[in-house]
């Protein structure tokens, strides 16, 4: 366990965009446009994911095992455009959770509370 938590901590903190992608891919597999679209819907206050940046994140997370490529869901459209679907791995979920906990702890601090609530 301690080895694993060490590995998780190595990733922290992660950038807001990385965190967004991990969250978006947590429950269902999405392709590129799916990620962008879901991001716009679910996190309207966050800066939009640009395509170049998105695929750099995807590439990096694939390499580090935070997400993995999965088979397209049966209901996805079949056309000439190549779409691959990605989903957060167990490690990815753990990292996202650790990041959330980290931020939560930060937000729970009296100083942050004072900032937020005056």
């Amino acid at each position: 366990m301690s080895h694993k938590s060490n590995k998780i901590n190595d990733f922290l903190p992660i950038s807001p965009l990385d965190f967004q992608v991990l969250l978006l891919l947590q429950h269902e597999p999405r392709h590129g446009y799916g990620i962008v679209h879901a991001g716009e819907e679910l996190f309207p206050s966050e800066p939009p994911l640009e395509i170049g940046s998105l695929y750099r994140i995807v590439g990096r997370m694939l390499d580090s095992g935070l997400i993995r490529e999965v088979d397209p869901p049966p209901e996805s459209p079949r056309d000439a455009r190549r779409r691959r679907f990605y989903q957060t791995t167990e490690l990815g979920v753990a990292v996202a959770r650790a990041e959330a906990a980290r931020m939560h702890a930060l937000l729970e601090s009296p100083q942050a509370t004072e900032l937020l609530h005056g």
Partner: protein
Amino acid sequence: MRGIGLGGILITALAHLFPQRFRSRFADEIVATYLDRRDALLDNHTIAHGSRLLRATTLTISTSMNLISSAIAERYQRSRRQRQRRRPRIRIWQEPMIKTFFTDSRQALRTLSKQPGYVAVAVLTLALGIGANTAVFSVLNSVILSPLPYPESDRLIRIYNSWEGSPDFSRNYLSGYDFPRFRDGVQGFETVAVMYTYRETGRDLTGDGAAQRVKALHVSSGYFETYRATPLFGRTFTREEEHGDARLAILSYRLWRNYTNEDPDILGKTIDLDGDAHKVIAVMRPSFLDVVGGDVDLWVPQDLQSERNSRGNHYLTGIARLGPGVTVEQAQAQIDAVQAQLAEEAPGSYEEQRVDLHPLYEDVVGTTSTTLFILWGASGLVLLIACVNVANLSLARSVGRTKEMAIRTALGSGRGRLVGQLLTESVVVAAVGGVAGSLLAYWGVKTLLAISPESLARAEEVAFDPTLLGFAIAATVITGLLFGAAPAIHSINVAPNESLRDGTRGNSGTKRGRNIRSVLVAAQVSLALVLLIGAGLLIRSFLSLRHLDLGIDAENVATFEVHLPTARYPTGEDRIQFHLALQDRLRALPNVTAVGAASWLPASGMYNSWGYGYFDEAGERQWLPAQIRTVEGDYTEALGIQLLRGRTFEPTDNLDADRVALVNEALAKRLYGERNPLGEVFTFGSGEWTVIGVVSDVAHEARGEFGPRVYLTHSQFGTNRNWALTYIVKTSTPARDFYNLARRELVSMDGSLVLYQPRTMDDVLGRQIAKDKFVLILMAVFATVALSLAAVGIYGVLSYSVNQRVHEIGIRMALGARATQVRGIVVGQAAMVAGLGMTAGLVGAYGLSRFMQSLLFDVTVTDPVVFGGVPALLAVVAFVAGYLPARRATRIDPMVALRRE
């Protein structure tokens, strides 16, 4: 589904910017995602068509920008990741930074101590480059680049009277008659003042103990205000005090400290000047310095009321401060109007006269600037040569260390640590060089000031400037880092096994490395040649200046000044009697062969220039500007001036006799041609004079400027004013021991008189060419430094190349090559490098030498002796520098050389 469209094509093309691996993984997806987004936008029918198109365009643009920046980032990160992958990912203990620095410094010292030759040459190069430059820059900076030491000094101007068509009078003085009119009539002047810088500004300060000669400057009211200088305490002169009976004095801080011992109650007390009590009304601040009037001990009011202030008597130096926003042109127009008015009031008196305003800065710096800019250029060249040398050294050293770096990388040294190590080494060498350079610079500034002539404007203000030192250090250190650390850093990027595989010599022996170094040395040779030619031209010029015939014989001639205070010698008769008596006493001294005196010594510059009035052939009255000298005794004999016609002055030419004069050959030829000028009568000042003799020409200036000159005898002209006479005594033995005897005679006649400025005539002449000598010395120093650095460069490259080629030379010798052939190879290389450099240098020197024209005397800028001799000298040095390594090459034992692999 829509088609790919223009946007799609653009995005597809941009996806190619990504690295290969990324592209193959994601390019198709990137395009697909873009198209999906675009389609979603275009298919969204809740918004208007035009708005949809706009949004799609915005999407395409923002995606394009993002792809470009992402591709750059990805490429950069990829190379970083690759480097990281090459080295095993081991967590190493991170040393604290300060400790790393000390470790590196120790390591650097250890490495460097094994290479004393490199260190010595590098430090010497840095020290010379930094030191010489900072010293000259400091002088230059203080004298030329810094503004005058006054508030808002750009508003200060100098006022000249000039006579059209007469170079003698192009920058003449103002008259005491005109000045008050200018003061009242030119509204553009905030303040304006005059001072009497002309001469005779020395005063005898008597009181306790021996009399002391001090420099006093007569100034009008407004003088301190123009410079915006306020007294430490007390007040400045008022307009009402601008008369001859105002016995007031303002002391300099120095005189207040030295003479009155900082007497706090000095105001209102009196000091004795020439036996006359003067009331002290102020003490100036120590920082006040008059760049026009010079370094003086005290100020007294200028008399602007006596009849001496006639229209024709031009003797005052004018300065002014322009009002805020007033231009020189505006003030010029106003002063022209006043001048026109003056001319109207006195028709004829102001013909061909003009008043010119010049910014004070230009006026003060004037001719000094050419000299200093040439020196600046020369010091820049030395710095460049030093940098090239440092580059060469560093390059040689760093390529030689490629293997060391490779081994250390292979052993797991971090890239950052190696770079840090190299930087530390460079910094250590630079620090030592910098310290040595600073010392040299400090000493250099002091030496420069010590040998700098009085004529160097504003020399008083020169101070050692640390920013300049910083500049020189930065220049050389950056060069060192660039050429030293850069190749080494590059070598770290090379995979260690590649370097290690590359034979025994690393990359150092590659032809490219040698070529770069040869080009650097050639550049050095060419720069050195430029400097050497510059120095050569100056030496030639100085020699011809030295041997110039000034028309006098200065051997064993002693000079000194005697000033008689008007208070105790009020009439001309008193002064004439005193001088005649003193001459008789001096003549009686042992070894004295002739005693004369003059109002101004030959070859000491222009002095009194008056109009020589004569009638031309048409019977019209004409005026010729001529230098006038009041002389006494055996003036011509004492200086070896020849009498060409008629006679010289005799004791009978006194106040009771007719007024007589001598003219020089130049004047006689110009006005009288072949006619005999003896007996001609001319107007001079307010009287008429008869020519009784013609004497040979003497130079006005040490650069041999000859012109019309008139001599009057003090016995007749001593009543005109209180002339300060300079005694000229010819002795049969060297003149040095003469002064004590002369002083005794003087003091026995009048105990409160001072034998002022005792100098031999050689000394007087030497001072005149002191500036030329100063420039010459500096150039010679620069040239020597350049030559040494070039020699070091050639030697360095060749001995290094011999080291690299030991194996090859060994084989050649084993195969029967003779020593001369081996030497030929090495010396040939030297000849090629030097030849290349000299060709470039000759072209450069030819191009640059014309800028030196104004500094040269009697030498053309393309002097064949210099342009032939200097390259020959450089060739000899190059040969010697090349011969030493060549000789070493022939001593190589083929067996040892072959075994060395």
